């Protein structure tokens, strides 16, 4: 099954390569990986989606902790996290079809971000399933180009990403 793993890492050159190298050499297949800044300067946050089982997911977290630049890691899979993807879809839209497409955009709560003579760029955020359905609906109109981010995820409630792994193992 899919595991959604969050990592807080030091924002230093080569960190992405270390994470990618770890996944490669331990034989894990990354389905998506996103990285960006956090509320804390110098710290980046990664959302990594891997297709693997519970035991292997635990192993990958243990390996990630061995990396000096990795600060915190958490598997959000069993915490029903908020997971979002973003896609931009450039679709053929002449005068005849434009209104029709815009109606679909409204149904899916997407947004038109660029309008040209023959095309529209539509931005949509949501779960992977929602974006997949939207793409399917648009396909008959002619998708010229599409770009999708991987998933970003956050646990629900007031708790921030916690480091249960380390806290459990520190002497009380």
């Amino acid at each position, binding site marked *: 099954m899919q595991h959604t793993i969050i990592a807080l*890492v*030091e924002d230093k*050159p*080569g960190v992405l*390569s*270390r994470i990618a*190298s770890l996944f490669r*050499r331990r034989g894990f297949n990354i389905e998506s990986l996103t990285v960006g800044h956090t509320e804390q300067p110098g710290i980046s946050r990664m959302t990594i989606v891997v297709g693997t089982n519970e*035991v292997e997911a*635990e*192993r990958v977290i*243990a*390996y990630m*902790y*061995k*990396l*000096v*630049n*990795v*600060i*915190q890691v958490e598997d959000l899979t069993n915490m029903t996290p908020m997971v979002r993807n973003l896609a931009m879809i450039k679709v053929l839209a002449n005068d005849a079809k434009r209104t029709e497409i815009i109606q679909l955009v409204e149904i899916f709560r997407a947004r038109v971000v660029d309008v040209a003579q023959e095309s529209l760029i539509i931005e949509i955020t949501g779960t992977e399933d929602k974006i997949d359905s939207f793409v399917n609906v648009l396909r008959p109109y002619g998708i010229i180009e599409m770009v999708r981010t991987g998933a970003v995820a956050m646990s629900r409630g007031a708790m921030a990403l916690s480091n249960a*792994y*380390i806290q*459990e*193992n*520190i*002497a*009380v």
Partner: protein
Amino acid sequence: MKKTGAEILWECLVRENVKTVFGFPGGSTLPLHDAMHKYPIHHVLVRHEQGAAHMADAFARVSGEVGVAIATSGPGATNLVTGIATAMMDSSPIVCITGQVHSHFIGYDAFQETDVTGITLPITKHNYLVTDTKDIAPVVREAFYIARSGRPGPVLIDITKDAQIASIEWQYDDSPIELPGYRPDLRPAYSDMEKAAEMIHEAKRPLILAGAGVMKSEALKELRDFAEKTDTPIAVTLLGIGAISTDHPLNLGMMGMHGYAWVNQAIQEADLLLAFGMRFDDRVTGRINAYAPTAQKIHFDIDPSEINKNVKVDLAFIGDLKESLQKLMPHLEPRHHSEWRQQIEGYKASSVPQDIQQWPDDGKLYAAHVINDIWKYTEGKALVVTDVGQNQMLTAQYYRQDRPNSFITSGGLGTMGFALPAAIGAKFARPEAEVWAFVGDGGFQMTQAELATAAQQGIKINIALINNGYLGMVRQWQELFYNSNYAATPITSPDFVKIADAHGLLGLRVTKREEIESAVRTAQAHPGTALIEFRVESEENVYPMVSAGSELHKMIMRPTVKKDQS
């Protein structure tokens, strides 16, 4: 005060208490080597950078301090790779410093440029590329800290030539190192102590598996106290040799593929395994799904990623072994396991006739006899270094090493060519020790060039070169599992006595058992490095043996009657 990057580097090394470095200069280390003589550090010029890494590795294993290797960019750096991987697999703290091309050349395929931080990513605990002089000092401090703390390991620092050359206003800063993602100080939870005590108290057939972690954590006394209080026998891994004296009544000896049959039998029969600083390598477990089927397992390890990696355990103590055992001891009550120990003695008795030492002298020279006799003539006090293969396993079996950090071998990576450079590194770590390197004719020829290093340094080591004319361990597998098809394993050798002589070293040759003593005595009395070539039986095997994929207790035993007598 204004200092160049090179000067800052050396000053940082001095501050880390480095007295010896092993290196080979080149274009990208010119500034670094140029500044060297201003500092009280001895530079050992190696003949190949692999040797530098092995020397630093053995230096670290023997001394417990960080070993340092230096190489130039490109081929210098790539030549370190085997040595770094060796240190990584056996958790040896080394810092490798490589020169790198000018920072503005990086990425342009400049002369002798290679992406060594990329290459060594999976075989270092951590690595750094330094392009700015001001980063040298903090990086060196971090590198030494990371190499030696937690589960030790190799760290590589790649420093561009311009960063070595540039001068900056600089003062040594010893403020605390801040590495938010690095937690070498994990400790077990107190709640686990009671649970562990309960498991230990209830066990009828407990067994301690002692690994290298016992020595790295300096938990020798704690191991002994624990074993004695709970009357628990101890089996050691290859790298755990020396964790407990061989004549201690609770020390059963080595486990694993070429361990003692009774040890493996005991593991398979145990109801509680206490793993102390060992990682259930495939060479000690045999077929994993048939490993210790009746035993509960408690794993003590400083590296959380080792827990449940190879073997699923019932309880884990993550942290420093010494500290964990100290905290656990007050929870333990004395126990007696005479029945269990008698059971193991029973296994032992049935193995004894298969020991080669029980054989009557038949006028032939056997490697096992050579090693046994050197053990005898060195009174078991030598600092022993081995290569990889039959010589390694026989030395583990027949050189009964009682001292910690005195059996130096490439366990995890199994690096042939390790012995000679490692013996040189070991000698620098403990100059007063009598160093003996046990090495086969195959492995010796891989790094033979380091004889010149020993000669140039004027150090004294002793080399027992076990020459059987084959790559012996591979030949053994071919004999047992590939219908004796000796493909690519017969190996010719130069005249090793002349090779030693050509280096200005003492070379001796032994072909009969009765010549061993005088040769060893002559080597011992010689002030410089001595090499003894032992021409041993060519097709002898190491027994007992667990064949790959077999259950641990199903060992192939030495035939009780010799082949040529049957």
